[in-house]
């Protein structure tokens, strides 16, 4: 086979005088694959903030684009959820006897837990569901779990409208404490992002995680005091098992639920350490989650 072209001569004949690696070095060419440093990674991610926002909104728009009611479902879905849970736990199982304003108690728990649950499950799938995107374009991969978190945040804002409506309807007064609602949500969002980044890496390499995750989530739901009050439930335990209550209250989901109940429901007394727990989990999850996700940055979508 004849190969008269000069470029081939470069590749082959050139090797006699200068190796390709040396030629690359002389012209300042670099190897393509490398993980950026952590500060640079944060900078890259910040540069992609428009993509994160646009991707999140687009996913929300496209999610309901096939239905007749369209975006109204963002409001209808939480409303229907509230109705179903109230029917199950408030009426049929009649859990409400020991808790004042059980309606507000239950719906707050369900909505706040759903926010964390959906963000974390979304994050776990964010890499494996976007492999074609990862294999086609260069961008900091953390943009994907972040976009899923923003998408859930947008959905949560609608849910909060419904929630606040329900709480007011059940006769709770509007208090100055309500000004702290954004702070509580911000802490929860921070925790969600961290947990979702962590699960994104786990889900990207352990493919069976997505089958297992619904069961983990349901166990978490039942353990987080969404339907019942944790102190009431552990009151019958013997003295030696009293620590169970502390462990259950250290659960981040329980902390964020209790925080919101404390703000919205006047008669509700949260556990002593609710704010401390909430802040601790937010910082801890974000730092560990982000670091853990970044460590595998160059390996997503490969193999």
């Amino acid at each position: 086979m004849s190969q008269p072209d000069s470029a081939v001569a470069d590749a082959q004949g050139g090797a006699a005088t200068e190796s390709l690696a040396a030629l690359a070095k002389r012209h300042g060419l670099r190897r393509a694959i490398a993980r950026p440093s952590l500060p640079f990674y944060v900078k890259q991610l910040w540069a992609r903030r428009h993509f994160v926002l646009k991707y999140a909104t687009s996913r929300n728009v496209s999610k309901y684009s096939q239905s007749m009611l369209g975006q109204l479902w963002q409001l209808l879905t939480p409303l229907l959820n509230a109705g179903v849970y109230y029917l199950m736990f408030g009426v049929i199982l009649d859990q409400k006897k020991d808790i004042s304003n059980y309606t507000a108690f239950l719906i707050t728990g369900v909505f706040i837990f759903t926010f964390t649950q959906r963000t974390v499950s979304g994050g776990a799938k964010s890499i494996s569901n976007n492999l074609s995107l990862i294999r086609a374009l260069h961008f900091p991969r953390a943009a994907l779990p972040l976009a899923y978190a923003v998408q859930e945040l947008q959905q949560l804002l609608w849910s909060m409208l419904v929630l606040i409506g329900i709480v007011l309807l059940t006769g709770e007064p509007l208090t100055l404490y309500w000004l702290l609602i954004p702070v509580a949500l911000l802490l929860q969002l921070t925790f969600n992002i961290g947990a979702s980044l962590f699960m994104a890496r786990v889900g990207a390499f352990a493919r069976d995680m997505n089958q297992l995750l619904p069961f983990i989530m349901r166990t978490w739901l039942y353990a987080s005091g969404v339907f019942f009050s944790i102190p009431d439930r552990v009151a019958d335990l013997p003295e030696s098992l009293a620590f169970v209550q502390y462990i259950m209250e250290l659960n981040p989901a329980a902390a964020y639920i209790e925080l919101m109940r404390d703000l919205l429901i006047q008669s509700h007394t949260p556990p002593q350490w609710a704010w401390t727990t909430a802040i601790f989990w937010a910082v801890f999850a974000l730092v560990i989650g982000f670091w853990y996700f970044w460590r595998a940055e160059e390996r997503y979508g490969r193999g």
Partner: protein
Amino acid sequence: MAMERVWPLTAEEQEATRKSSATGTPTVIVDDLHIVYKVYGATSAEEKGNAATALLRLVKRQGRPQMREVHAVKGVSFVARHGDAIGIIGRNGSGKSTLLRAIAGLLPPHSGAVYTDGQPSLLGVNAALMKELTGERNITLGCYAMGMTPSEVRAKYDEIVDFSGIGEFVQFPMSTYSSGMGARLRFAIASAKVHDVLLIDEALATGDREFRKRSQKRIMQMRESAGTVFLVAHNLDVIEETCNRVIWLHKGKIKMDGDPAEVIGAYNKA
């Protein structure tokens, strides 16, 4: 992003650059590249994918038999220069797309290396687009996905719509587009960004004659603005009209590399 070289040039290097500008300075150097990747989920006929066999494998501590290793690129070397438009031809499974992905830095080399100047980009904005959304939304989404800023998107928006020639369809969901219109919009979005090294995989196969001419013109412009373009296509006419150099891949190795007419002639005879 990194459009210009950020490192300082010594006087000697500048001299060398000027001297070699006749042929163009190297932009991509592929040095004895091998790519091996794993494929999941390839079940053979006798291996039934039911739960019982899967459990048996777990008990016997066997790996997933569906996992295979594919040695897709076996020792490829070449140097691409500023202003080159390189066509890559070969049969299905000869490693063309794998090679492009490796140049783009999206697949790690098993051995050997790819050296690049700046960030080669695969013309693959398709993956970021959502067919339920309007063309308008998709243009913004696609541009952001490629890393453009809001002001850049605003500046490029009309140009993208004009180039794609989809007219008022830009207000309709992409799912209502004909395949040609979709391909045109995708190419228009993807080529809106200035790329140092652009890798195009089968994007020009669809679209009518008139659009093909326009996109070829755009590829020429990119070459003239001292970029490098790689083009994979099964349509040999497109390659012959657009490229100044053709690489023929056969079973993961370079079988021939050179003048388009010559290589395509040999390829057609084989």
